[in-house]
């Protein structure tokens, strides 16, 4: 079940997008998220759509994977779509079903919001598909670096993030193993009433917690044994490299922003 999830998984390849500095990618996405909210007519959406298509092409990620990745969030998109369709009271009346009245404005709004969602999901899943999680962490640590002066534990948080990332597959495997072991003992995780189901996960959760604590303890000992004593005096193995293509991406972002301001109505 969990093995089919594609959101948040890295697909190694050798493309321009893969090679970009994670900081550039993070900044670009941050900018893009804001710009998406500037779009308010067909032209602006078309521009954003075209840019997204361009990035997908450059990344060489197969469209099929991206679309597969949409499946888990599809319900969310449909939900917002219908919410707008049913509850926006603008423009002409298109249809009347029972007590529900559908207005033209609602349909337009629903479609636009859904497109906005799709664009955001495409672009952010492109980040995770083309960037190893550890690089994302490095990028975040570097971008937030200045906050260290404000005594914010940026290094510690980044380390926590990278360790969590490292242990996600391990813990998923473990969940699967314990689930199967309990199913072999007759546990049923997929039927029954809500209280019954809540009760059914106890035999799964307790072993998971016990093992996670044990892992954390052993990991702490192992880290100390290898000389970990906090961020002081520590050097970094991974060094981020900002190159021309990253600068170009930033220019593109600024240009995109300017274009949207001009084209929006």
């Amino acid at each position, binding site marked *: 079940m969990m093995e089919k999830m594609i959101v948040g998984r890295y697909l190694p390849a050798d493309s321009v997008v893969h090679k970009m500095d994670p900081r550039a990618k993070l900044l670009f996405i941050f900018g893009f998220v804001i710009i998406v909210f500037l779009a308010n007519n067909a032209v602006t959406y078309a521009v954003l759509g075209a840019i997204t298509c361009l990035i997908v092409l450059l990344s060489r990620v197969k469209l099929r994977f991206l679309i597969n990745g949409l499946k888990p969030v599809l319900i969310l998109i449909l939900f917002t779509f219908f919410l707008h369709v049913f509850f926006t009271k603008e423009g002409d009346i298109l249809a009347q079903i029972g007590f529900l009245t559908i207005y033209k404005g609602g349909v337009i709004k629903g479609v636009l919001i859904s497109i906005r969602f799709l664009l955001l999901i495409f672009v952010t899943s492109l980040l995770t598909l083309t960037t*190893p*999680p*550890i690089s994302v962490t490095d990028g975040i640590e570097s971008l937030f670096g200045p906050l260290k002066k404000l005594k914010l534990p940026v290094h510690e948080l980044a380390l926590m993030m*990278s*360790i969590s*990332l*490292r242990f996600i*597959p*391990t813990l998923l*495997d473990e969940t699967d193993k314990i689930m199967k072991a309990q199913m072999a003992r007759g546990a049923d995780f997929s039927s029954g009433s809500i209280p019954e189901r809540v009760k059914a996960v106890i035999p799964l959760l307790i072993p998971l917690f016990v093992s996670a604590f*044990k*892992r954390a303890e*052993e*990991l702490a*000992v*192992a*880290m*100390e*044994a*290898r*000389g*970990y*004593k906090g961020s002081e*005096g*520590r*050097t*970094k*193995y*991974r*060094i981020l490299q900002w190159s021309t293509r990253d600068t170009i991406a930033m220019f593109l972002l600024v240009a995109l922003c300017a274009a949207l301001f001009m084209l929006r109505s």
Partner: protein
Amino acid sequence: MKEKVISIKGVSFQYPDQEAFALRNVSFDVYKGEWLAIVGHNGSGKSTLAKMLNGLHYPSEGTVSIGGYALIEENVWLIREKLGMVFQNPDNQFVGTTVQDDVAFGLENNGVEHSAMQERVFASLEKVGMTAFLNQEPHHLSGGQKQRVAIAGVIALRPDIVLLDEATSMLDPLGREEVINTVRELNENEGLTVISITHDLEEASRADRVIVLNEGMLYTEGTPERIFQLDRELLNLGLGVPFAVQMSQLLTDAGLQLSRRHFNEEELVKDLWTLNFEK
């Protein structure tokens, strides 16, 4: 005279919430360049000893000195530079998201320069034969491979001593072989001092010297050959015996002549043949 790298004198240790001593008056030395195996069943005190050598426990009585430093709180980081540890669970000591990040972790902690770091990561991975896996993520590696990466992470810090704390007990036979061979090579070619805490006989039989712990006390010590002569005594301590020793015993019981109990299968077969079948 061989150079001592660890010296343990009259060490006792008691866990705060327990009455019985986990270690009782244990004394022994470890010499430079040797491979010492410490064996004992679960609860014999061997894991307490391992934790102590890593500075996680301090002796209640007696003294421990590692690489010339007394085991006291102020020296703990110096001692950890001298003695590297490989732990039991391959997953719970893999810190990095990829093989090279993991090997670099210890170097980062010790403030090694970036240029030197890359060289040392690569050289260490070469010594354990894992260079082909540089960018591999841990969940795509076998247990044996993860342990080899752990060893690389330790030797990248250039310690004098490597302590394997049941490092092969969660591995399959191939993984075990892989790890033991890697350690053997490092011990022979790099002169690394190895202490392996284990209940795997195969691992113990490859050591230069074996120490048997029982109920917190040093039961006996000697070459593997001498230790495995103890045979039934070892079984009573909850330990096994190597195949040749077991076979010698069974053959004697079945009324066959043997000059002694053998440790080596080839010698046993020769002895069995000469004394019983060659006329």
